[in-house]
Each structure stands twice: as structure tokens, then as C-alpha cells.
């Protein structure tokens, strides 16, 4: 299979003394829906930002759609991004534009298509996410789930090869969550794209992804098909998948001995 994303020995830190990613190796195959899971702060969004070219690795190589991200100039990076789509955590719809104009935005910016054709394409994308009837609404009139679906229609407006989802299920009710999860799968298959879903929602994500990476403290601690990884005897993955409050990730933040903090030890 062709690799769409190849991350080799990538490290990254906002400050040299506090690395966020340590020596990461990741390979993502074409046509798959890939989950990147882990606790908040484990580095999964940073990894997504490196893949999107928003951050450059401090060390290592990141190849995306055949291009070495770290060596691209602004023009080449923008050319690469035209082959990508991204869904942000809360949609990031342009609040001064209608639903229709939001979806039309990338088409108007990057193509010379006549307005009649743009209209047809926008209605096609909105129909795919079930919101053709909401074309005239403003983003402020949409529910969280609807906003996420409009943002998804916008992300696929240019038929991208790689679609990235940053926490797509945050603050969604069960119906909207199911709709977004189903759309991620069906849109990926119908477009022949590759999708990367960064999330910490295990139960919702494992059923529809083809491959999953588990991350902890800036490292990949387990990877593989979801059934295999869910059964893996990795302490962090077991704790994460089963939602246990204590284990590899301790419940208590590091602190001095409880007794000495209460002054009991000193009295004795």
C-alpha cells in the first residue's frame, strides 16, 4: 500500500527543555481511516499540526503526500494544503459568512469556476452531510453538530487526498456524534481519501477506524488494527480503553507523603 504520511524519528518541542514529541515513528496508508488516541496533552494534536505543516519537526523526517514538510517554503506548503482538508475542534466556521459561503470559500479562493458551478458543488457537498436545507443559515443559527458537519463539507470542498480531524466529537450529543462518525467513514471511502482522526473518545472511534495509534507522553505506545490494540497488554492502553482512573497514569499528581503534609509525621 502507498504511504500517505511517513513520520520517521520525529521529535518536537516548543522549548528545547520541554519536548512534546519524542522520536515518533508513524506510517499511515492510503484509503484508511486512522485514529490517533491518547490523553489530553500527550502530543497527538502536535503530531497533527506537524502533518498539516503548521509546525516543523525539531528533528526527524515528516513526509506528507510525498513532500518533506520541514523543507517546504510558504508557496509549496500552500500548494500541498490544497490537497488536504481539516476539521477543527469546534468547526472554525467563518462567522461573517453564511453556511453556503463557508463551503464555497475554498472553491472561490482556489478555482476560477463560474458561480453556477460553484453553487452546484456547494449543494452537492452540503447534501453529502445532510445540510443542503441549511445553506442560507448563519453559523450562529447552527447547533454544535450541524456546525461540525458544515465544516466537514467545507473541508472536502476541494476533494482532498488527506482529511484531518482534530477532536471531532467534542461536546456533541449522541445523535450528532453518531452522524459525524458515520460521515467520516463514508466520505473517506467515497472520496478515496485518507483520514486521520485525533481524539480521546475511545468507544466512538474504535468501531469505525482501520488502524489506531495510541500515544502517551509524546511517544507512540501501541499501534495496529483496533481489535488487536484493544486486546494488547500495554498498561496505558488497558487503562485508557477501560477508562480506569488509576494505573499507568496515576490518579494522584506527584506530591510529598500525605502524612508529612498533614504534619502527622513531624509530631511523631
Amino acid at each position: 500500500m502507498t504511504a500517505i504520511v511517513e513520520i520517521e524519528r520525529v521529535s518536537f518541542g516548543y522549548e528545547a527543555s520541554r519536548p512534546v514529541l519524542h522520536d515518533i515513528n508513524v506510517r499511515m496508508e492510503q484509503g484508511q481511516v486512522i485514529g490517533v488516541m491518547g490523553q489530553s496533552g500527550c502530543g497527538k494534536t502536535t503530531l497533527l499540526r506537524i502533518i498539516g505543516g503548521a509546525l516543523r519537526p525539531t528533528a526527524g523526517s515528516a513526509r506528507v503526500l510525498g513532500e518533506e514538510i520541514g523543507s517546504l517554503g510558504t508557496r509549496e506548503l500552500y500548494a500541498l494544503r490544497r490537497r488536504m482538508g481539516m476539521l477543527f475542534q469546534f468547526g472554525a466556521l467563518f462567522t461573517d459568512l453564511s453556511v453556503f459561503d463557508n463551503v464555497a470559500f475554498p472553491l472561490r479562493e482556489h478555482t476560477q469556476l463560474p458561480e453556477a458551478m460553484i453553487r452546484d458543488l456547494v449543494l452537492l457537498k452540503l447534501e453529502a452531510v445532510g445540510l443542503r436545507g441549511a445553506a442560507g443559515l448563519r453559523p450562529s443559527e447552527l447547533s454544535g453538530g450541524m456546525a461540525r458537519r458544515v465544516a466537514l463539507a467545507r473541508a472536502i470542498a476541494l476533494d482532498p487526498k488527506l482529511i484531518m480531524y482534530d477532536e471531532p466529537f467534542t461536546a456533541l450529543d449522541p445523535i450528532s456524534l453518531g452522524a459525524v462518525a458515520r460521515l467520516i467513514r463514508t466520505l473517506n471511502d467515497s472520496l478515496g481519501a485518507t483520514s486521520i482522526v485525533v481524539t480521546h473518545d475511545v468507544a466512538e472511534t474504535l468501531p469505525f477506524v482501520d488502524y489506531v495509534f495510541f500515544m502517551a507522553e509524546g511517544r507512540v505506545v501501541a499501534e495496529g488494527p483496533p481489535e488487536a490494540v484493544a486486546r494488547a497488554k500495554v498498561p496505558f492502553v488497558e487503562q485508557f480503553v477501560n477508562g480506569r482512573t488509576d494505573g499507568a497514569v496515576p490518579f494522584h499528581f506527584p506530591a510529598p507523603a500525605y502524612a508529612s503534609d498533614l504534619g502527622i509525621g513531624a509530631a511523631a
Partner: protein
Amino acid sequence: MSRLQKPLERLGSAVMSRIWRLGFAARFFGYMVLHSGTAFGRFGLTIREIYFAGVLSLIIILVSGLFVGMVLGLQGYETLQRYGSSEALGVLVALSLVRELGPVVAGLLFASRAGSAITAEIGLMKATEQIAAMEMMAVDPIARVVAPRFWAGVLSMPLLAALFSAMGIFGGYLVGVQLIGVDEGAFWSQMQASVDVRNDIVNGIIKSIVFGIAVTWIAVFEGYDARPTAEGVSSATTRTVVTSSLAILALDFVLTALMFTGGNG
């Protein structure tokens, strides 16, 4: 030694961060001007921002201009009539407005009304990831969002200052001629004879263009550089109004010294 070292370190760090930020603002200005092709190539984007920054500021500009002119009429008459030269009221009102109050007060009002709105809008776009989304769609937010707002401000400001001055002169006329009874012919003819196009009107327009550049540059920069939180946007908006107001007053002194001294005025 260490007691002295800490405050010195803090002072040095504060000075360095201010200088760094000033340098960043200068590079931002250069990048924005160089990437203004979209603002002029798709002029509709700039026209839309002229509506928000300019047209929606009209009410506050016109009403303030009228009242400032009326106060000038009252105060000017009170002083001039002591020296028996109340007919010069038109000259006093017109020169005060065209040279100073028009550009300065309109600039201060523009900073409060439009500058703060520009900062808040760009800051909120950043906080809600709209700027990041635009970058991920391979659209340069400085060319698409910032530059049209900048040029809209630069184009709007001289027009607003001219309208402020015109409305102020009308206010001075209402109070001086219609209310107090200064001779109407003297009011207009002395004004026409004494106000010079080159020295007074053009210099006033130059001032308003400079203020427009300063205010809008500060507004777009503060919005783009705002911390992406509610508190960050709020303090960026406050900084825009405070910094713009101080910049207008400082620039006004420098420009006045350059324009109206050395036998010019």
C-alpha cells in the same frame, strides 16, 4: 548585588520584549503592505470593510463634529468679542477644525469606534481558529483578512475627518450666525479669505491620512497578535484604543511642528 540584579533583569527583559514586539509590528506592516494585492485586486473585500469601518462610524463622527463646532462657536465668540473682532469667528472655527480638531478628534473617535472593532474581530477570529482554518485552506489570512481592513481604514479616515470638519463648521455657523447673530457675510467671507488650501486643508488631509495609517496598523496588529482567549482579546482591544490615542497625539505634535512652523503657518 542580587537585590539590585533582579529589578534590573526585569527591566531589561521588559525593554527587550517591547523592542522585539515593535520589530515584529514593523515586519508585520511590511508583509501586509507587500501582500495587499488581494485588497486591491478584489476591491469588493475592501469596500465591505470601508462600510464597517467608515460608513458605520458616520453617526458618531457627524454628531461629534456638530457639537465640537457649536462649542467652538460659543467659546470663540466669547473671546473674540472682547477684542471687537467677532466677525473673525468663521476663521477661528474653520482653522481650528481643518488644521487640528478635525483630524485629531476624528482620529480619536475612529480609534475608539472602528479600531477597537477591527481588533476584536480579528482577535476573535484567531480565538475561534478561523485564522488557523484559513491557513489550512491555503489562504493567507494577512492578504485575505488583514490587508483589506487596513486599506479600508486608511481610505476612510481622511473622508471621516473632512466630514467632521465640515459638520463642525456648520455647527459653528449655527451658533455664531443663527443663534448669536454674527454677520453671515463676514463669517463666510473671512473664512474664505483666510483658509489656505495648501497650508491648511492639504496639511489637515495629510494629518488624517497619517492618523488613519497609524490607527489601523495598530488595530490590525493588536488583533492578529492577540492571545487567543477572551481575556487576550479584551486586553488587545484596550491596547488598541490606548496606543492609537497616544500615537495620534504624539504624531499630531510632530506633524504640526513640521507643517506650521518656520514661517509656514
